[in-house]
């Protein structure tokens, strides 16, 4: 009697053809930060650096875009990730939403 049970046959590996995946067709969203008169510029810059790991220069560029143009698209992501970013930005009380990219 064998001490280890062995399969009678070795299963064949499943080969998946590389075609367009579901991810490719999944909807994407822009993470938008909207202007308001209450969040301080230095604070907004800090939050962008913290959440997106950006250098100060990039964070300031987006902060100024929010301030001067009323909004800035901070990222384009799939639903889960976009939602994550909105959540993080909202924790800091920035006015952030996710908008369909198409």
């Amino acid at each position, binding site marked *: 009697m064998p001490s280890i049970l062995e399969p009678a046959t070795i299963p064949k590996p499943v080969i998946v053809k590389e075609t367009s995946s579901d991810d490719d067709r999944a909807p994407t969203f822009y993470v938008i930060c909207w202007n308001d008169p209450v969040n301080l510029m230095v604070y907004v810059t800090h939050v962008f650096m913290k959440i997106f790991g950006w250098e100060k220069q990039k964070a300031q560029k987006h902060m100024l875009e929010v301030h001067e143009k009323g909004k800035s698209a901070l990222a384009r992501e799939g639903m889960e990730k976009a939602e994550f970013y909105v959540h993080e930005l*909202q924790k800091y009380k920035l006015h952030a939403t996710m908008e369909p990219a198409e």
Partner: protein
Amino acid sequence: MRLVKQSKGNWQYHLNHNEADILLGLVKKFPFTELSQIKISKTDNEPATVERGKLLNESLAEHRKALKTLAMNLLGNEKWQPSGEGQLLTLDSGSREILLQILNDIRVGCWHALGEPEVLESPAAHSSRKDLTYRKLMDLAGYFEMKFLEPEV
């Protein structure tokens, strides 16, 4: 209030007695306002998105409760040391972020309570006592945010 030392993810600030009392008061009494409901999207009104928005609001409400608990830890003596004409406040990176979130919750919450004015000028002479309190809290929270982030300016 000024930054005294920053090293290895730790910040040490000096606050005079008045600043220390006010900051502790703000943290102790947080939150001052009702939590505003947010929309997760301005353009997407699909039922699934609306549902996600509800979950987001629930999650933010939980986060606010957690902030309150964490805020109480910031009142702990181990973070405060008497120093000359005031107090030294030592914060690690995480505590500093919590404090910033609390301060901005106060600031933005008061702004909502004031009716989201587009211009943040001096309060009108006929402002109610409640509005004046919101205005004062908003300014105080902004003052401390600036001071905590000043080294980054």
